[in-house]
């Protein structure tokens, strides 16, 4: 079997997920041998920008107008398209302030006479193209990335953990941030995979992997309210990494409802 042709791309992003790939130092040669990396602007100077691809790994959110065309073009040339990292999967940090109009933000950051960015409200890839597999994480976890690639190479659909950070946190035997410290911990809502890195360092989970498949707004709101935590605080925290997914309006609505 010939090696699968792979392209690795970044839309609007910090390149952190691509960096994780480069940081797979012990496996990088093996990976480079197992696949044929045809197009990777960040790591290669000779790239084939037109060839059909078996797997496209796309990092970043669609936050500039030109990103829409870029991701559509990648989709057209690829058999499998992977959303790599929380920006690509959920909108990520660039989507945190989607409720503020872009013009207002642009002016605040760059002043009123700079006009070079065609910025738009940040959205995940799935708003524009069909995504075959989502690998969230800010950045992605090296082990999860390698497992995903190994599954593709084996001809399988990769599996992703479908439970929350709490179980990894319990397995690490951490002191629970909600139970003992009354903190807004996003652990129960957030997809596992990080090994509960933040609570293991005595910091509440910030939800960087985005939500699990089944998010229970009702029980979370009730729980935090019983702990005397204000709804705004919860929304604020949840909005950081996956604002479009958390649906803040719905969240607010539920909270008002529960508070009655």
């Amino acid at each position: 079997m010939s090696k699968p042709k792979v392209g690795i791309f970044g839309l609007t992003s910090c390149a952190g997920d691509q960096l994780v790939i480069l940081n797979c130092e012990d496996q990088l040669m093996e990976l480079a041998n197992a696949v044929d990396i045809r197009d990777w602007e960040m790591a290669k100077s000779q790239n084939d920008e037109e060839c059909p691809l078996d797997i496209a790994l796309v990092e970043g959110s669609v936050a500039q107008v030109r990103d829409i065309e870029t991701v559509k073009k990648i989709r057209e040339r690829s058999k499998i398209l992977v959303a790599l990292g929380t920006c690509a999967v959920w909108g990520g940090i660039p989507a945190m302030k989607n409720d503020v109009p872009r013009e207002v933000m642009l002016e605040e950051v760059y002043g009123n006479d700079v006009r070079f960015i065609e910025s738009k409200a940040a959205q995940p890839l799935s708003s524009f193209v069909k995504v075959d597999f989502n690998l969230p994480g800010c950045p992605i976890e090296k082990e999860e990335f390698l497992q995903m690639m190994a599954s593709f190479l084996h001809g399988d659909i990769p599996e992703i953990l479908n439970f929350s950070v709490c179980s990894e946190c319990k397995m690490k035997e951490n002191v629970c941030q909600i139970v003992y410290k009354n903190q807004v911990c996003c652990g129960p809502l957030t997809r596992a995979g990080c090994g509960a890195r933040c609570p293991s360092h005595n910091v509440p989970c910030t939800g960087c992997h985005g939500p699990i498949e089944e998010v229970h707004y009702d029980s979370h709101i009730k729980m935090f309210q019983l702990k005397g935590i204000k709804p705004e605080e919860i929304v604020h925290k949840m909005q950081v990494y996956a604002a479009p997914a958390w649906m803040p309006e719905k969240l607010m609505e539920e909270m008002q409802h529960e508070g009655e």
Partner: protein
Amino acid sequence: MKVSKLPKANVNKFLESLQDFGEVIIPKEKQEQPGVYMFDTMTDPSEVAWEYLRTIIPPKKYLTKPKEVIFKFDSQRGFEEVIEDAEQKRVLFGLHPCDIHGIKILDVVFTHQYTDPYYTRRRNNTVIIGLSCIPDEKCFCKSMHTDYTEDGFDLALSDIGDGYLVAIGTSLGDDLVAERADLFTEVEETDRRKYLDFRKKRNQSFKLDLDIDDLPYILDLEQHSPIWDELGKRCLTCGSCSMVCPTCYCFNVYDELNLDARSGRRIKQWDACLFKDYALVAGGHNFREDRAERVKNRYYHKQFRMVEQYGKPSCVGCGRCINACPAGIDVVEVLTKVREGSYAETESS
């Protein structure tokens, strides 16, 4: 049962001497949070938290590991069995009666019909030394009839002030004492009296009570109680209650592949019936799609089906799930309300 006495002055020497047998696991206080405990390897006997109550994770973590490799495979070379810690001898020191009962239940589950070689191998290399305790407001082992145990340990220590009465439960336990005879003394009449006083004090210290008479019958009648839906609305399905339970033994099995796409490892990892994918089968059907069904299942498995299958419930009253649930769901409160038929959403914290 043979009983000996270990004066407190000799207890550190005794603990150190156990290292000749293997790794000694003791309860320790978490540095970052006083009053929270975990089982961990002893480096010095001074680390033992003698007055501890319920570690975050029960000692099951040494017998059925949170995540372990069960074999390695290679499509060209076949497979190689792996039993992690197969040769590691261990002393689990300081287990309270609830946790010993927890292991007794796991023993049945992992050896009853099919023998789990991973569990059994580690279990056979494990010495269990019990320790007496004074319950707090979340302990309800007395209600579950797990507040004392006559077996399931090699040695069991009861605090009688100046020393410990040491019950000898197995011939291995007898050897452990005989080999260290100089550390032990004869039990005297005053020691016996002190033990009876201790027992009385302990029995009177229980604050939490759960009536389990005919509970399986009541549960069978209350299959459609509104309580299960109400609980479903409160549960986050985070799985914390299962992870911390000494008798929750479910696991998932999956493969981790290497990049050569022909070799890898088969993994066994803790699972929980609260998780969405737990009862998902090939073809996409989910037997417990609904969150309320999953929460309910945890109660029915422990208090109903285990009684049917093994004659005893599989809750040992340790209170860990009460402590660990971020949503404040309390097993005693739930089962009491089912019995009273009085469930209405309560604002417990």
